[in-house]
């Protein structure tokens, strides 16, 4: 929505506000999930996400926070894709890379600052519309990889992910998948059970090395914002996505039901229909909500958000206190976003392909 610099500023406001006012709030989830879904390789997901984390830590320090004050409340969000051991190694590598970065690059003293706490979601992009029940198996192995990789929390996709937001039946299977793994299989009773495996350790080392190549390259480019402005991560991702598509169409990457062991089974019926009346109801509800609010209080609050956005980034201009007041005064998400777009400009995606 917003260009990289103001986006970073708002993130830093969130981190600063949490650190000072809401110390048990996990301030940000640094995501690789979407990078992977866009078609990146596992190593790119690892490197670009950790580098985004580096950018956030640098901003926090620039803002005047001590690294041990805020690093312990950062968290990450990994994808869990279909290559079982690669994903486990990726998550293991992420722990070591982050710990080293926090200690050696940023001088963290508190062990909590060095923790790689992460949520994982199984890979939506690995699922198929052909033979959708195969997706239950994919989600299961991806969930298991995430557990063995040490995830702190987990999202399992529904089998109808490709088609629509999930049906009740599909959601239940996704939930039960986690519950069977968590409560029946015993895999959550051991920390890092694959540690010491020749193969997994070798793969972990390899991924750490390859990620560090990217990290050094991004340093040479002058940081993540500079790299994004040069389209570098975008091109890497686009190249990887195109390469993967070629591999699938050439049969080099096998997807059961798509390019191997295909069948003529009919696809799923679309069972989720959203009544258009709901849109009208919500619009009316929002309008009534805006009618009823204290318009003077609302405007004063929005003016203060605006004033802070326009000022130089610092605690006095941290948007969060003003934003909270604005929301209490009845501001809608649309209105807040409109204000941000107006104050900071709209990001125009160069549309690299």
């Amino acid at each position, binding site marked *: 929505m917003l260009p990289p610099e103001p986006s970073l500023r708002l993130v830093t406001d969130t981190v600063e506000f949490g650190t000072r006012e809401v110390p048990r709030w996990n301030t940000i989830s640094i995501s690789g999930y979407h990078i992977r879904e866009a078609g990146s390789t596992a190593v790119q997901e690892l490197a670009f996400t950790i580098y985004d984390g580096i950018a956030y830590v640098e901003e926090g320090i620039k803002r005047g926070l001590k690294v041990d004050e805020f690093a312990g409340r950062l968290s990450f969000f990994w994808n869990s894709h279909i290559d079982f051991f690669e994903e486990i190694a990726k998550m293991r590598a992420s722990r070591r890379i982050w710990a080293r970065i926090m200690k050696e690059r940023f001088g963290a003293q508190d062990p909590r600052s060095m923790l790689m706490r992460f949520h994982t979601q199984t890979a939506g992009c690995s699922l198929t519309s*052909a033979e959708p029940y195969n997706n239950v198996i994919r989600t299961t192995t991806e969930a298991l990889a995430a557990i063995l990789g040490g995830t702190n929390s987990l999202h399992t996709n529904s089998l109808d992910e490709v088609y629509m937001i999930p049906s009740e039946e599909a959601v239940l299977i996704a939930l039960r998948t986690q519950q069977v793994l968590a409560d029946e299989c015993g895999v959550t009773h051991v920390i890092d059970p694959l540690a010491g495996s020749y193969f997994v350790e070798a793969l972990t080392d390899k991924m750490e090395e390859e990620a560090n190549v990217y990290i050094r390259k991004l340093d040479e480019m002058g940081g993540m914002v500079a790299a994004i402005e040069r389209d570098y991560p975008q091109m890497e991702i686009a190249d990887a996505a195109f390469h993967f598509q070629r591999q699938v169409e050439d049969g080099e990457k096998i997807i059961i039901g798509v390019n191997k062991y295909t069948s003529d089974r009919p696809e799923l019926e679309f069972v989720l229909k959203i009544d258009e009346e709901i849109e009208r109801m919500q619009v009316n509800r929002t309008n009534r909500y805006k009618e009823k609010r204290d318009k003077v209080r609302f405007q004063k609050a929005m003016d203060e958000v605006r004033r802070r956005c326009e000022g130089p980034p610092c605690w006095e201009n941290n948007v969060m206190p003003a934003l909270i007041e604005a929301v209490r005064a009845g501001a809608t998400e649309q209105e807040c976003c409109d204000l941000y777009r107006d104050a900071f400009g709209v990001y125009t995606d160069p549309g690299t392909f």
Partner: protein
Amino acid sequence: MEKARKLRILVAKPGLDGHDRGARIVARAFRDAGFEVIYTGCHQTPEQIVSTAIQEDVDMIGLSILSGAHTYSFPRILELLEENNAKDISVVGGGIFPLEDISKLKEIGIKELFEPGARLKDIIDWVSSNISPRRGVVLKK
């Protein structure tokens, strides 16, 4: 007299759906196949898409959408093309479409819909065989 040119395609993402991996891959495949391609990026309104299509003088708009909002945006785009005297720009779609919507969309003038599993070569072959350039345009061989 118009100089001969390559077939020009606009790949566009209408609405709030931000999933553009497929759109970018198809755009690249089109470019590799010798078409001239412009990609709008995400979060375009129908008005923006039609305006860009006309400004860029494209022969075809490829709309990418996975969110179900094609029921609004596709007819609206066709409507705007008609209003702007640009009905000679073909429109195709790619993404997720319920079976019952496919025939409805074709009836109102969407020339083809490409669903999950569509192969790049098949899309390109289809476009080469089925999409004519705009009125008055001569295609470069």
